[in-house]
Structures are given as C-alpha cells and as structure tokens.
C-alpha cells in the first residue's frame, strides 16, 4: 500500500472560539475558520480549487459550504463520519491534493450543537447503524453511559478498585483543564481540582459531569497543498505524515470475546498510522498528541491502545505525570475535547490546529519543547463499528 507521507502539507489553519456561540450561525463559524486559514496561508478564497466540509448535524450537501464562502464551479463535498468527521474532511482534501486533482484544497469542519434546545447532540435513530434502520429498537443509551461500560470493562479486567479508578480518571481531567485554562479559544478556561471532579454529579458511574467533554459550537479549517510547493506559501508548512481512517464492522460486538477493556479501532488505527508515518516508538517519537477525550476513561484507554503506556499500566504513567505539559508526551495540550467541547464535525480539525500551532512553535504558554511530530485523533460511531481517524503531522520532511 502507498503512503501519503510528505506528499501534502498544511499551509494555513483557522479555528473559531469554541463555546456557546448563541449569536453565531453555522455560516458565521465557517467564514471565521476559513478566512483565518486563508490569511494564515496567505491566499484568497478564489485560490481554493476544491473543498470538503465535515459536519454531522449542521448541514447537508456542498451548498452548506459553497453558500457562505461563495464557491462556484469547483468540486465541493460534505463528508460525515460521526466524531471522526473533521479528520475525514482533512483526509478528503489531502487525498485530492495527493492525487493531483487540485493544488490547493480546503477542509472545513463545523458543528452547531447549541441550537437544539437541549444539551447534547441532536437525536438520530439511524446514525451509525444502518442495519437497525428506523425500527427504533436500539438501546437509547447516552454517550457517557456507553463509555461507562468501557470504564467498568477496564476496571474489571485490571481489577481496579472503582474509587481508585475514578480518582485516576480525575487526574486526566485536572490535567486537561489546566491546559485549557491556557487557551483563549477553549470553551472552558478554568482549572479544576481532583475533589471537584470526584464530587461532580454522576452521569453514568464512574463518569461524573466533569469526566465528560462539553457540548459546544465551533469550526476549524485547513488549507492544504502539495508538499513540494508548500514553501512557496510559508517557511514553516506542516507536513502530513499519516492520515488514516480505521473502521470495523461490529465483529467484536456481534460475537463473544471482546471484553470492553480497550477500543479495537483505536488499537489498530494507531498501528496503521504509525506504520504510515514510520513511527516505531510513539512515546519517544511524538512530541505531543491530541486525542479523543470525549470522556476521561477514553483518554486513559487511548494511552494504552496508542502504545503510550504498557497494557494495563496507564495508571503508572498518569501518576508519573507523563501526559502533562511538562511530561514526556504531553496529551491534549489545548485542553482537548474536555475544555473545547465537542462540535463533532469541527473537533478533528481543531485538534489538527493545535498540533499545527505546536509544531510551528506558536502555542504560547502551552508550547511543548522541541516539537517535531504531533498526532491528532478522533473516533466516532457506535461500539463495535467505530471510525477512528488519525493524522500525524511533522514540521520537517522525512
């Protein structure tokens, strides 16, 4: 199989403030993210030769992107892969460039969740399970409860005392809130304490409200071009080392055996991404990572599935501070989904935005030392048939 490594570079990115943006429409968010990316790349809207919009609930068809940005007669497509939608849009734009279909492409991710009238994603009985159709008999389980099931699977497997397990998860939350407090675009910019996390109202045990990511509005965008011409636009383009989507077809939830102590799509998706990027030891070779911390337990499981921690030993690394800003491998340096919230279509590109800024040395108080490679990861869908999107970026070729 071929590889996209070093064929495509990001030359501009934009990201709106995330939060409860009552006074902004989907179009407003798209325009803000896209024009920040244009300005960053030093291009104009008319330079875009193809564009991809990632959104789950906030728009259908190319028109949702073409209309606010006034694209005309260029290829534009809306893509969707649940929570992995933002990475999916970046992947589509990058592959178009890699294929030679266009030289400058735009990826935009947007989601407006706060117009629904309730807190949470808009309802849909069909998302992610075409075989269940609209018979409406799938369990009406909330997202936190889905991840509570993973928590209890993990705790059972490694014989972790529930209270201690909860405290472990709280440390991840405290870490992310610290990082988020340093980012002016984060939805939540405040520190929290272990006690606050431990005492936050339970949503689905062991997950309390503070173990859950926020529900936010937001958009992010990237301008990509051919790696060989990237330096015509800027001195510090960011090269795509890997851009993968890893999915499965419910093999683990249709049959017995899988014990809910890890996420198979994350485990295998990271292996595929590392192979494409040529990474052998992620803990050493990655400078930082933005991972899909929709719920605290998921970030902990990712540490293991991504090879940052030995299997069953994430606890040791959490307690050692490995994933803090000052640690060996800072994770979710911008505060993650925890502090930005999770406007589904935007999240993957928001994560890439942080990796991009870190690799360019422009992350301000959150800046990691000597950055070279960074990873962004989103995963979405239903258990057993998740879509895991990963991109690995670098600030130099090779």
């Amino acid at each position, binding site marked *: 199989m071929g590889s996209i490594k070093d064929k495509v570079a990001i030359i501009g990115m934009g990201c709106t403030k995330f939060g409860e943006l009552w006074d902004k429409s989907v179009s407003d968010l798209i325009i803000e993210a896209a024009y920040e990316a244009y300005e960053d790349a030093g291009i104009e809207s008319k330079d875009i030769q193809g564009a991809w919009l990632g959104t789950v609930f906030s728009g259908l068809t190319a028109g949702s992107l073409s209309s606010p940005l006034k694209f005309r007669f260029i290829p534009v497509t809306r893509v969707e892969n649940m929570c992995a939608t933002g990475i999916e849009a970046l992947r589509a734009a990058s592959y178009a460039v890699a294929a030679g279909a266009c030289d400058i492409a735009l990826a935009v991710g947007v989601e407006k969740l706060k117009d629904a009238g309730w807190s949470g994603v808009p309802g849909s009985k069909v998302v992610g399970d075409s075989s269940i*159709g609209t018979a*409406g008999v799938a369990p009406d389980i909330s997202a936190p409860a889905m991840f509570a099931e993973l928590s209890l699977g993990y705790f059972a497997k490694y014989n972790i005392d529930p209270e201690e397990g909860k405290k472990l998860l709280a440390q991840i939350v405290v870490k992310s809130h610290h990082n988020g407090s340093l980012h002016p675009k984060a939805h939540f910019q405040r520190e929290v304490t272990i006690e606050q996390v431990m005492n936050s109202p339970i949503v*689905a045990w062991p997950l309390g409200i503070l173990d859950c990511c926020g529900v936010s509005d937001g958009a992010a965008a990237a301008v990509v071009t051919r790696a060989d011409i990237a330096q015509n636009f800027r001195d510090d383009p960011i090269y795509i080392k890997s851009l993968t989507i890893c999915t499965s077809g*419910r093999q683990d*939830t249709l049959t017995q055996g899988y014990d809910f102590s890890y996420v198979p799509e994350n485990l295998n998706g990271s292996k595929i991404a590392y192979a494409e990027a040529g990474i052998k030891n992620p803990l050493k070779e990655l400078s930082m990572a933005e991972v899909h911390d929709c719920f605290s337990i998921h970030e902990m499981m990712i540490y293991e599935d991504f090879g940052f921690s030995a299997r069953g030993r994430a606890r040791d690394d959490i307690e050692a501070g490995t994933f803090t800003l000052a640690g060996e491998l800072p994770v979710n340096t911008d505060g993650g989904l925890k502090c930005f919230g999770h406007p589904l279509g935007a999240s993957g590109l928001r994560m890439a935005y942080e990796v991009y800024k870190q690799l360019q040395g422009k992350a301000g108080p959150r800046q990691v030392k000597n950055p070279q490679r960074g990873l962004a990861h989103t995963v979405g869908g239903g258990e057993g048939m998740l879509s895991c999107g990963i991109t690995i970026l670098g600030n130099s070729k090779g």
Partner: protein
Amino acid sequence: MSGIVAYGAYIPTYRIKRDVIAKVWGSVGVGGEKAVANYDENSITMAVAAGIDCIYGFDYEKLDALFLATTTAPYREKQSATTVASALDLPSHLRAADFTDSLRSGTIALNSALDTIKAGSARNTMVIASDCRLGSPHSEYELIFGDGAAAIVLGNSNVIATIEDTYSVFNEFMDVWRAEDDDTVRSWEQRFILTKGYMETIQQLVSTIMSKHGSKPEDFAKVILYAPDIRSHATLAKNLGFDLQTQVQDPLLTTVGNTGSASALMMLVAALEEGKAGDRILLINYGDGADAFIFCITKEINKIQGKRGIKGHLKSKLILTNYNKYASWRGIIVEEGAKRPSAVSPSVTCLWRERNRILALMGSKCKSCGTVQYPPQRVCAKCRAKDEFEYYKLSDKIGRAVTYSIDHLTVAKDPPAVFAWIDFDGGGRIHCEITDHALEKPSVGMSVEMTFRELYKAGGIHNYFWKARPIR
C-alpha cells in the same frame, strides 16, 4: 377428554401497598398490596410473559390457535394476539383472535378454545388473559385493580385437568364500564350492582350447573370465584354454601388485586398449582353475564414442573414506595420530562421487515463456523461466509452481563436506566436495557433473562422489544 394441558401466569415485579395509595388521598388504609405493571409493561407484554411461562416444556409447534383476552388492548383497531404470537414465535398457521371488552373475556375465550378442541379444528389452543386496568385516582378501584396475566392451553392429550362441564349466561347489565373515551372505569351504585348483578347472576348460574352436573357444594376440592372486591367474595362464597377457609381459592385480591379479565384464570393457575389428581374444581367468572366450568385434575398434573406460575411470581417482588412513580408509569401524572428530542415514530416498514429479529429476538447462527450473532448477519462476523446461516432464537436464553452502565442522562421512566452488554449461554451478544433492574444490583457477570417490553409509543405506534432482567 378435552381439558387443560398446560398453564402459566405472570405477575409484574412491582407491588404497591394499598395503604400508600390511601395515604396520598387521606383515606383509611385497607391493607394488602397490588401488582403494578412496570412503565414498560402493558397487557401485551404481560400476555407474552404468561405465554412464556405456559409453553415452557410444551411443544408450541402443536399450537393451532391463540386467543387473547383483555379489556385493555393497546389498539382500538389492530389485533393484539398477533403481537403476542409473534413474540412467542408461534407457528404461522396459527389462528389468532382477540377476545375483548368484557371482564369475562378470559372464560369466553376459554369456552371458544374448548369448542376448537371438541370440533377438532385445533390440536391445542392457547388462551391468554391479561389486563392492566386503571381506576380513577382516589377511587376504590384505584386501590383494588392490579395487573397480571394467565395462560392456559387446552387440548386432548396429556390432559392435566379435564373439563367436565360448562355453563354460561349473558346479562345486559351496566355495573362497570369504560366508554370509548374513558381511561378509567365507571360504575353504578355499589349496592345495586352487587346485589342484582354479581350475587344474583352467579347464584343462579351455580345452582344450574350443579344440578346439570349432579354435584353438591362439598364435591369440590376448590372453588374459584371471580370477585370485584374482598367483601363481595366472602359474601358470595357463604351464600353459595362453600367453606371459605378450606374450599375457596384465594382470590389474590390482597396480593395482586383484581386483574380484570385475567383474574379468574390466574386463580385457576393458582388452584392447579396446589391441586392433586382427582380434585374437582368449580370456576365461576363474572362480567356481562357469567361462566361456569367444572374441572377434574388428572395424575398428569404431577408431570408439571419448572413454572413460575402464581406462586413463583408472587414471591419475586419489589415494593414501590412512591405513589408518584406509580402515577407516572400509568400516565396519571405527566412529568415535564428531560429536554431531549421527542421520540420519532418508528418506521412500520422497518418493523415489518425486521419483525423476526425484533419481536421473536431471532439472531443468526453461521452454518459454516457456528457463530451466533444478533441481529442476524448475512455476512458472518467471524468467517465472512455469505448467506449461510440459520435463524437462532435468543429470547429463551440465559445471558451474563459483560459490562453495564447506569445511565442518569438518557430519558427514562424509572431512572437511572441500566444498560448492559449481554453474552448468551450458547453464543450471541446483545446490547440492551435491563428492566426491573432494582431486582439485583448490576454487576459484571450477573445473570439475566430476556423479557418482552414496550420501549415507547410514538405516532400512535407501540414499539416493543426485548430487554434483559435479573432472573426472577
């Protein structure tokens, strides 16, 4: 001789003390408790549960008809017996019919079932009576009405209780009724309806069948008397010359309540549970007239085992201490509810296309590698063999929770909702809700059984599916 060949019953897990209800309205307590259908139960789901109990150990391929009796059918127009037959995975040649509207519908159906057996038009006919009636808040009926179901199969072979005689009368009489737009039961003046209706009709009926059959009160080991309330039951027994202590079947009024059309058949199941070969049973049902049956238990009764029946279900219970919760489950109180998207009507087309896997909980078993999968898969999740599978029923399998969640966020009538991934003994895995979850604190590895429930109603469609439940 034709008679009963199988029986079963169902009483919902929840009970409420009558004193709790009385206290809400500032009334004097009357003692006892009544069975309350959970929020996800109705006459249909209870009928399925009684049916499962009844056909346990019975070759249901030999059933040719199913008669469902209820006064609380969920649809005014659309048969209910078909839903029950589908959930029980009964053979498609089955004659399905609803017997409705009358409190006597259970025994009306039983008489019709007897006719099918006698006529030879059915080898075996199952009658299920199930009711979930609502008394107005702050009424006697609210205190006495309970929820439950019973199932009886009639046939000609391996008869456990022969039917020696029957007698029926009809009586156009407005004692209790629900008009087209009534949710709760109305009634005429108690003295009149009990004296001229209940007592007089039954006394005449019993006198007729006893002279027809040539029997005296002391010939009966057990007498089953439908009764609207405890006092009328005792008075009637006395008037008829039966000994309340030794002869008369407990009407279940202080433990289950008056279960309407299911009441007489539930008492019959209770009597069969205690009965021995040679016992003669007199059953009297009342409502728009009256029905009498004389049964004689055979030694086949000794072969019956493994049923929960009335006794088993009575023992397995949870006490609902909160009237508001009861009122919410029955729709007496409409809560504001969570700020969530409202339920959308399920697609009838999808429900029809997937009826087997939804109503009968059919999974698939790969003929190539033997892996059981739910929902049924055309391409095997294990070996990718295409279209090489047979259907495999999961509704009757015991499962174990691989992991679970206690969900405070999702919309629930009995919050917090509990969900679990279940691995079935013999293969297969399902993600579903656990209902009656207070029966046992959820844990990884806990054993569960499947129970047919109503998920929700939207667009006028009752959407049913299976949930797991701690084993009762």
